[in-house]
């Protein structure tokens, strides 16, 4: 087992064989969480707030998961087990008690750091009939914007590097939302509401993306921006499977660049993201091996450094 040579060794050696891919992923994520907690313990302000910001994304996912689960009457314990460990917070179990969204907000979310995101973009009527995905994406948009503002406040090298990384994230989400909502019931206005207020594509790119109905149109829009042009040129016409992989590659490149400079908090962000990418690679490789598709391994492994 090659993994035993790395730092993941002690986490995996207690597992009985045959080793299932999900177990590998679980254990690696556990290690990540422990490293994170270790860093958090030793951090002071404002680094600790920065570190916490990193986990808000996962918190949003967990909240959405529990809410949907409760709506469909699933067991709370099961749901709790399925949450991402990086996004756990104390009162998460009480989410299951709330019967509708207003109570949800009143009882639980008001205490969590996610509160401002809820109040900013969603009124209580919206909460009731909004589609879960839209809610998730609206929350994420608010989160990104908040994070962006926070980084600007920190100033200096952090602001520079983080704004670059965050704009990339925002743009990437915008592109994905446009592509994935082609042909669905998402209206153009809704689509526009999900785009963030910063990034390279704001505001003109967003306008154009909102009216796109086809992947080729999206490509046309993106090619006006040089950094994304190179990504899209790697894809042949009409093919979009590798788009996600191309985005991942680009993200990894930028994250690595963050390590070039010193004395800024961006390295932490980059570290966490790169660790997540590492876990993804591991999962991909182990699944390929488990399903006898070793030839596809190189399709999606992104090399870091």
């Amino acid at each position, binding site marked *: 087992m090659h993994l035993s040579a790395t730092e993941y060794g002690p986490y995996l050696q207690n597992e009985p064989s045959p080793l299932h891919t*999900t177990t590998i992923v679980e254990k690696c994520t556990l290690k990540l969480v422990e490293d994170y907690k270790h860093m958090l313990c030793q951090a002071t302000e404002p680094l600790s707030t920065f570190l916490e910001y990193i986990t808000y994304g996962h918190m949003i996912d967990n909240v*959405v998961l529990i809410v949907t689960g409760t709506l469909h009457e699933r067991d709370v314990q099961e*749901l709790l087990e399925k949450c*991402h460990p990086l996004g756990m917070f104390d009162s998460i179990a009480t989410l299951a008690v709330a019967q509708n969204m207003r109570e949800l907000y009143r009882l639980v979310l008001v205490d969590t750091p996610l509160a401002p995101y809820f109040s900013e973009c969603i009124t209580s009527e919206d909460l009731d009939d909004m589609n879960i995905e*839209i809610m998730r994406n609206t929350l994420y948009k608010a989160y990104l914007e908040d994070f962006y503002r926070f980084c600007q406040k920190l100033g200096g090298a952090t602001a520079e590097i983080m704004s670059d990384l965050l704009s990339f994230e925002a743009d990437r989400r915008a592109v994905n939302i446009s592509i994935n909502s082609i042909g669905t019931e998402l209206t153009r206005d809704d689509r526009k509401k999900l785009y963030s207020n910063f990034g390279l594509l704001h505001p003109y790119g967003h306008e154009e993306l909102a009216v796109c109905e086809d992947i080729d149109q999206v490509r046309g829009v993106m090619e006006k921006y040089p950094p994304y042009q190179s990504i899209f040129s790697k894809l042949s016409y009409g093919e979009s*499977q590798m788009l*996600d992989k191309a985005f991942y590659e680009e993200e990894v490149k930028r994250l690595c660049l963050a390590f070039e400079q010193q004395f800024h908090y961006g390295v932490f962000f980059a570290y966490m993201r790169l660790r997540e990418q590492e876990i993804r690679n591991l999962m991909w490789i182990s699944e390929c091996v488990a399903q*006898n598709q070793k030839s596809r391994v190189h399709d999606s492994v992104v090399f870091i450094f």
Partner: protein
Amino acid sequence: MAGQSQRLNVVPTVTMLGAMKARLVGATRGHALLKKKSDALTMQFRQILKKIVSTKESMGEIMKTSSFALTEVKYVAGDSIKHSVLENVKTASLKVRSKQENIAGVKLPKFEYFTEGETKNDLTGLARGGQQVQQCRAAYVKAIEVLVELASLQTSFLTLDAAIKTTNRRVNALENVVKPRLENTIIYIKAELDELEREDFFRLKKIQGYKKRALERQQAAAKQFSVEQSAEKVSLQKGISISSAHNFLSAAAHKDEDIIF
């Protein structure tokens, strides 16, 4: 087997013979029809077997591709996408319906699937991996198609098997038990009837024989009588009654001791 060619116990009359013959004809016709049915069913059986083999192979392939598509989804959209999809489900949107098909008289069940209701999951993975999710969904729908087909093929396989066994049993029973029995019964009845006829004939012949002999004796007696008569006549013309003399002689020999001649 001991009682293999026994016959039925019947009264050997002509009507029974007619009845047995009718039953034999019925049995023969039934046997031919059942044999045809058995052949048709066996042919269907072989066809289904071939289809099952090919469907199983393709199912292996398809399951492989669909689970790989699932891996791609997990890679792109993060591991928890599985949970969010699962939580969003309320009712199944792909359902299976069963209906009956009639093949050579055997009712075989057949399954077909149909989509009911819309899934709300069109927007899953909106920010990342939506494409992969849709592709994975298509792959699994195809997998379900193949599985449903395989299920109906296998159930019809089992039903056909049972039907073929019963039909063959009936065919064999007719061939080896019912028909020989009927044939033996017919032979027996015919034999009995022949015997009766022979008896009658024999009796008739015997009686004829008696009558003939009786007639002959009568004729002989009559001839003797006429001969004697003519002799008597002649002797009477001569003055003596031979017959009475004869009578006298014979009678006297027995009755009168005094008269000594």
